[in-house]
């Protein structure tokens, strides 16, 4: 067994370990793992109490990564996230010292990100894209691997600040966290009441996550599959589609490729299949498509539009 196969097994083991503490939500776990292998950030959208924080906490435990949680509120300031320069006096010497904010961790949970003001939201932009934070004139690198997992509540829109498109585009995936089934709910209840439940074990560390990410990035993709991805992204710019006001950016195509590669890697393959593309295209595109008034009035959501595009483009044409 070589290193790649070993790493593939470890990643699969990570999923199993996370599943010990998170009941159900298999797709959510898979999506978050894919984003981490791809080096992307995730926007989790769901009702409160669905285990989003627990999920992120468990992942960070299994991957042995540092984890910080930031509760976004309207009065949260950028400095509260990035950190700030503080005056220090040590003996005769006095000066400013950078006090790192909570963003300096491997995994950041930006809870209810849409409750903070745009100014504070944008404090995350540089860290998410450049993996660095600039305070004053000095840029500080955040620790690698670095992931931002943000959550937002889909129904409580009062007093919120919806994320601007530029910031949304920086999230690789937008994952919908659905309500658990009855059996899953029973499992969740049992899990919290039964203290003797099995605890998740640490499988990887930060370095291994980065190596795994590099390996996943080396997965091969055929021209036909690449064409399929490009056709899907171009399909979001179809002017004849009355439900789309703005289509996905080129960053979406990159995200689909990286996500599909990561999925193939997690599946134990060395090549991307159409199935991989289809699996990642929904979380990649759903927050990158801006719906038109027709779509809203007709009750058509993003997933329906993406499904139509995927169906129209097809995968194999004989």
């Amino acid at each position, binding site marked *: 067994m070589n290193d790649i196969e070993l790493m593939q097994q470890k990643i699969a083991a990570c999923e199993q370990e996370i599943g010990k503490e998170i009941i159900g939500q298999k797709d959510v776990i898979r999506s978050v793992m894919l984003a981490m292998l791809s080096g992307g950030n995730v926007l989790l959208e769901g009702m409160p109490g669905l285990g989003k924080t627990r999920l992120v906490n468990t992942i960070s435990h299994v991957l042995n990564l540092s984890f910080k949680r930031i509760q976004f509120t309207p009065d949260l300031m950028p400095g509260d996230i990035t950190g700030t320069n503080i005056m220090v006096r040590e003996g005769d010497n006095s000066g400013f010292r950078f006090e790192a904010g909570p963003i300096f961790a491997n995994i950041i949970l930006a809870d209810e990100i849409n409750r903070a003001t745009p100014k504070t939201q944008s404090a995350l932009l540089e860290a998410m894209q450049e993996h660095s934070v600039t305070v004053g004139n000095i840029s500080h690198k955040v620790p690698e691997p670095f992931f931002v997992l943000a959550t937002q509540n889909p129904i409580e829109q009062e007093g919120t600040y919806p994320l601007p498109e530029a910031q949304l585009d920086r999230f690789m995936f937008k994952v919908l966290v659905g309500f658990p089934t009855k059996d899953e709910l029973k499992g969740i209840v049992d899990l919290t009441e039964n203290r003797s439940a099995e605890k998740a074990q640490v499988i990887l560390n930060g370095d291994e996550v980065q190596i795994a990410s590099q390996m996943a990035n080396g997965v091969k993709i055929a021209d036909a599959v690449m064409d399929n991805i490009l056709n899907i992204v171009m399909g979001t710019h179809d002017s004849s589609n009355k439900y789309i006001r703005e289509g996905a950016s080129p960053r979406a195509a990159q995200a689909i490729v990286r996500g599909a590669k990561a999925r193939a890697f997690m599946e134990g*393959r060395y090549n991307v299949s159409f199935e991989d593309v289809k699996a990642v295209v929904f979380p990649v595109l759903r927050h990158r498509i801006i719906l038109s008034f027709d779509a809203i009035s007709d009750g058509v959501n993003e997933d329906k539009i993406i499904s139509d595009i995927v169906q129209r483009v097809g995968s194999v044409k004989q």
Partner: protein
Amino acid sequence: MEEKKYLLDFINKSLKKINTGVMIRNILNGLIGGLLVASLIEGASAIWPIYYAHLFAGIMAGVGLVCGIVIGVLKKKKKSDAALLIDGFGLKERVVTAYDHLEEEDIISNMQRADAAARLKEMEPSIKIKMNIGVRRILLFVCMLLLAIATSLLPAPVKNVAAEKHEVKKEAAEKEKEIEKAVEALEKIDRTELTENERQELSDMLESLQSSSNEMKNVSNAQDLQSASQRLDYKYADIANGLNAMQNEVESRKEQEKKEKPDNSGKGSASENKGNGGAADQIAGASKQIEDNMKNGQQNNGGNAQANNGGQQGGQQQGGQQGGQQGGQQGGQQQGGQQQGGQQGGQQGGQQGGQQGGQQGGQQGGQQGGQQGGQQGGQQGGQQGGQGGQQGGQQGGQQGGQQGGQQGGQQGGQQGGQQGGQQGGQQGGQQGGQQGGQQGGQQGGSGNGQGNSGSGGGMHSGHDYVSLPNQTGDDDGLFGNRQEGGNSTYQRDNNGIGWEGNHVDYDNVIGEYSDRAYQGIENGRYPSGMEDVIKDYFSSFNN
């Protein structure tokens, strides 16, 4: 390396099968389309006359086949397509990815290739590449083929009409070409050597031929063609006579000039001689061209008559022979009447009589009838032409039918000329003219009627030769004597073997002939210059 070879071999093997299927599918599609169009064409040919329906249908089927092959070649699959198709059997794009990265040697590429080859070997028994021709497509093709065959074999009278129309058009086109040649030959004649009257005559000839050419363009059925051909033949005869006369005139002028200026052998005289000789030669050439056209026309008519009446033998042949003989006699008799007009009239009459007799005989009776009719027509035309001169008889005989008719005509013309010369000498011309005039006038009418009845299944037109009106005689010259009221008494009798006819009043007969004559004038059916003669003749009945 083994994995690469294995993958490539498998892809190539699959590709062959896939491309064979693509080619067969497209060929079948093309043939289905082509056969559908072919069926429509064949079906249309059962409603509208389309002579080339089979050809068009075949071309359409061929075009469909070619289109199918071309599309099949254009739609030929590539190896990556074949690999993708193989992946469709659950290989999750392993084969196509391995094929796309076949030349890469990094660790992941090698592992991917090995993985693809391993999975392919594992799944090979379950991978069945099909040609996907489709039973429905094959059934549709068979249906279209049967439909095309059925529509092509569908019996329809309109198909015969189409064939007939085609033949008519073809023959009309040939005639047009002949006319063009004749027109070219006429146009080549140097007009500077001709008199004003001769130029006018030449222009009339050209105009006449041009009208015939237009008429040939507009023919739409066999009857039109026959009528037009007959009119054309008369025009040829008329023009040939005119050209002969013109040639003689030019030559005689030349001789006269030589006599008048015997010592003038200078340059100018030589050029004049050359000029006169050239014009005469050109006229002779034009005349020969027209005579050739006439011969061709007669052969065609004979051939057509044979083709048309080929299935009707026995009694019809006899009828044709009788028609030919009577037609020949008729032509000769009428010829005799015309020859009294002088030497030229004798020549023309001889030619026309012999030719018409030969033509009518040939048309009515096929080759045999034509030969006999031509021989007799030629003999009689030649004999009576001999009263006007041996040359007229020979010419009349020569133009009197096909080869048999020609030979017979020549012999008859010579004999007739000799006999005419021996019997009549100087008197022969007068007596022959008188007898020919009277009998020609009398028997011309009876010969006409007999010719019609004798023609039976043959083709005959009895109104296209013109008698000189001052030689038609009185009412006594008619076969039936005119009664006081103009009508003769008649009674019915059932003992005869003939068909029952219709009784027509004398005035109606005259009126009908008058109408036809005037219509013929309007249609240009008679030789130019004869229109007034015909009008005068028929108007004399009204007096």
